[in-house]
Each structure stands twice: as C-alpha cells, then as structure tokens.
C-alpha cells in the first residue's frame, strides 16, 4: 500500500468579487511508497502547497481523491502518523516553544508519561533546547521554523510532509534540515518534500514530481528527469573573439582568456576541429548534465512558448 496516493485530484478556487475560478490543481496523479523521499517541485502558484493541503484534508477537492495510508482525508485517523511542517508557519505566538510542543504532542495522542522525554528529544534534534521556555513571539523566523519542525517530528511519524522546510533558515539550519531528512529516511520514514531549493531535491530525493500550472508535468527519478549526458562543456583558451560559435554550441561565459561552451554531443567533434583550426587551446572537455533547476527552467520556457503560440 502506498503511503500517499493521488488519483485525479483537482481543485479550483474562486477569486475576486466576480468569483472567477482559478484551477489550482488539475487531475493530479502520483504516489509515495513506504520509505521513499519524494520531491514536489514547481514554480510559485504551481499547486504544491494546495496538493499538500488537499492530502491533509485542509481543502476539499473538486474531484478525484487523495489518500494517506489508504484513508481519505475526511477520516482524521488518516493523519495519525503524519508530521507536517507548513510553509511559513506561525504557531500560537503567546505559547512558549515547549508549551507549543506539549499541545502538538497531545494532539498526536502521545501518552502523557512519554511526552516530556519525546519533547526533549525533538528539541535537541532541532537545537532549540535552550530556547524552549521563551514565548514563540520572541523567536526569529528561523527559530519558529525549527520549533514547528520539532512539532512535526514529535511522536515519530511514519510520514513527514515538509513544505519549504529550509525557508528562513541560515546555512547551518539548512544543513541541519538536510541531515534530519537523511536520518528520517534511514529510519524508514517516508518524506514528501516541497521546496524551491532544487539542489536540495537533487541531493535528497529518490523521485521528483514536477508541477507546472497545477498539472503534473514530469515525474520520475532525479536521474531520469535530468536525462543522460547529451551535452558537453568545452573550455577554450586563446583569442576567443576570433572564434565564431558554431551551430549546436552555446557560449556559457568568459573568464580572462578562457571561454566555456555547452556543445551538443552530436556536434562535439566538429566543434573541437573548428577550435583547433582556429589555433585555440582546448583546456577542458567534460560531460555536462542539466541541474534540476535548469530542467525546470527549460520546462517553464517551453510552457511559455507553447502558451504564446496558442495565443
């Protein structure tokens, strides 16, 4: 049984005085297996947070179903083993960090006898033990993020849903979150991870679901999404101004006398011959893989050009 299963999930919102409907998520279909780390990526407004809220029962779908552990979100027990970190969380600000965790622990149905030790454990994990008695309203954005993450980790959930978990964190905090996700994965916890920091997705996720305009654009392993080694980076040294970039190659940049090019695999030999003929020194030839960010940007550019062509 999948931990998360979305079948044709759709949701639209009414906007403005006239109630114009905007499709936030359309016919979404994906799943998350036990112990898997799944990255949910896409630009702003692509439907990532809406998808998460549909799964948690915070929003009601127009059509389709989303289930957690095989149960519909209308059943509160579907969330019994779920830890959720919302995007830009604002917990009850007049509570202290520890009081907030006590509330979260009781809502997660932790036994009162075990609650104190469980809170101490998660406070240590997010390095907030020293600030647990201070009111949340006195916390910095990063500290709020950490205490809410601690709340999500309480009770050792089998599924973690993290919406922009590194938002507002300094580099040390981001490293801590990455390490936490890795340790949770080792412990067999399934993670749905939604972020704009695509290098984190590349490093942490088993699979990626890419949303554009509320629709599933691509899904698969990180490697399959990034494709094979279809381009090469070639660095030339010498009088680069005299060298005209041939078709199939793209100038990436100059550094002093050195110019770097992205060259299609099919054009590599012709490019090298042309460079040698122009009396340039070849400093580097290396396979060049697209980053997830470049892949997403190319998807968005394709979307824009298709949209423009249709209009």
């Amino acid at each position, binding site marked *: 049984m999948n931990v998360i299963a979305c079948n044709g999930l759709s949701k639209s*919102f009414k906007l403005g005085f006239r109630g114009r409907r905007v499709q936030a998520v359309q016919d979404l279909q994906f799943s998350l297996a036990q112990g898997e780390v799944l990255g949910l990526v896409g630009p702003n407004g692509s439907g990532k947070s809406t998808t998460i*809220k549909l799964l*948690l*029962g*915070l*929003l*009601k779908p127009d059509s389709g179903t989303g289930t957690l552990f095989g149960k519909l979100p209308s059943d*509160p*027990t*579907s*969330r*019994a083993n*779920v830890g*959720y970190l*919302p995007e*830009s*969380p*604002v*917990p*009850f*600000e*007049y*509570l202290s960090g520890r*009081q*907030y965790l*006590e*509330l*979260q622990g*009781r*809502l*997660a*149905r932790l036994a009162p006898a075990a609650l104190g030790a469980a809170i101490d454990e998660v406070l240590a994990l997010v390095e907030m033990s020293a600030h647990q008695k201070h*009111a949340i309203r006195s916390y910095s954005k990063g500290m709020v993020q950490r205490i*809410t993450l601690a*709340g999500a980790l309480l009770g050792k959930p089998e599924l973690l*849903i993290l919406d922009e978990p590194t938002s507002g964190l300094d580099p040390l905090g981001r490293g801590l979150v990455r390490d936490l996700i890795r340790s949770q994965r080792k412990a067999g916890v399934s993670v749905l991870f939604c972020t704009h920091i695509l290098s984190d997705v590349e490093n942490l996720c088993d699979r990626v679901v890419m949303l554009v305009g509320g629709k599933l654009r691509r899904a698969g392993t990180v490697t399959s999404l990034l494709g094979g080694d279809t381009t090469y980076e070639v660095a030339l040294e010498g009088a680069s101004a005299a060298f005209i970039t041939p078709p199939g190659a793209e100038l990436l940049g100059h550094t002093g006398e050195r110019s770097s090019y992205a060259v299609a695999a099919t054009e590599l030999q012709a490019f090298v011959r042309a460079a040698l003929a122009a009396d340039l020194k070849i400093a580097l030839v290396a396979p060049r893989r697209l980053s997830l960010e470049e892949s997403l940007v190319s998807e968005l550019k394709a979307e824009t050009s298709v949209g423009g062509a249709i209009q």
Partner: protein
Amino acid sequence: MISAIARAGFIEALRNRVTVIIVAFLILLILMSQVVVSVTALTLDRAITDFGLGLMAYLLVALALYLSIGTLQRDFDRRSLVAVLSRPIGRHAFILGRYLGVFGTLTVILAVMTAVYVAQLLVFSVPLTSAVAASILGLWVELAVLSALGFFFSTFSGAVTSLTCVVALYFIGHAPQGLYAASSQFPALLRTVTRGIYWLVPNLDRLDFRPQAAHLLAVPLSDVAASVAYGIGWTGLLLVATIGIFSIRDVR
C-alpha cells in the same frame, strides 16, 4: 484533544496584552466606585450594586467580543490553525477547544472580578442578595452566548463584519420587547421581517437581572433556571452551526 486546545487558548488569552489591560482597568474601576458613590444622588446600596455589576457586564462583554472574534480571525490570518488541523482531530474538536479556551478565560476573569466586587460590597456593608448572584450567573451565561455568536460569525466573515453583527445582535437582544412593540406600527412586510428578527435573535434581556439586584428585588429561582437553560440552549445551537460551517470551509 479538546482540553489541550482549550488550555493553549487559555494561556494565550491570559498572556494577551489586551486581556491584561481590560482586567486591570476593570479592577481599578470597581475599586474607584466609592468615588462614583460619593457624587450620586442614589442610595449607597443601589449605587454600589448597580455600578459594579454594570462595569463588569460592559467590560466583560467587550472582552468576550474581542477574544471570540479575534481568536478565529488570528488563526485564519496567521494560519496557526493549519498545524493543529493537520493532526488527527476533527474540525469540531478545534472549534470546541478554541471556544472553551476563550470561555474559560472569561470565566476565570469573571470569578476574580466577582471576588473583588463581593469584597467591596462587604466593605460598604451592602447586602449580598440572591439577585446579585443571579446577575453574575446571568452575565456568565450571556458571555457564553456572545462568545458563541463571535465564533459563529468569524467562521465565515471578517473581523469588522463579525463585530458589527454581534454588536447589533447584542443591542437588539437587550431590547427585544421594544423591537416587537415598535414593529406593530411598521408596514406589513417590514413588520414580518422585524418579528422574524425578534424570534431569530437571542433574547439577552432574559439573562439580565441587574435591575432586580439594584432595587433589592427577589428573583424566583425558576426564572433564573429557565433563563440559564435558554442561554445554554442558544450557546449549543450556535456552536453546532459554527462547527457545521467550519467543517465545510477550506483552510488555505
């Protein structure tokens, strides 16, 4: 579950500066009532009884409106309810927990106020009648009804709209007989609408025993019991409606 949410709401409300300021102001005013008494033409007993009960009523009603409307509005605006509703609890538990947090806070403040007020009555040797007790009990039930009204409106409308509606219902609820009597002079359609409002609005006047307390009149226990049951009935009805609306509402 409900008690955990209520406890958090109680702690929040007591740490809220507005609550602290209103409570401090109320205690100060009750203690200053001897100044009012010295300039009034009324008898000492009546002046102290009426002034203290009136102060408690108006300031606690203001606090009830602030807390009941503000609680859900803040939860929606700051999205603090998202982290709670993502736990294995039903929407009804959230509403009941938040409501009990607010009502618990009001109850504790009313208890403290009552202690200060009773001490003052004893200092001035003003008789502590059953009508005074009925007034405080009536105020307590009225706070329950008004808090439920605040929660009801804030589940589907903004703070200003909710406040306007609850304040309007508060004034209509305290003058229902006048509204009914005035309606007989209205055109047929307006008369029907006005009489419809009369039946749809909780009659808060039934919970007000201050005139009897001020005039040292006896209040039959059966009247008090019927009024309390009436107030509890309205509170239950409003909470059921609030839960119904909140259960189908999207939480963005």
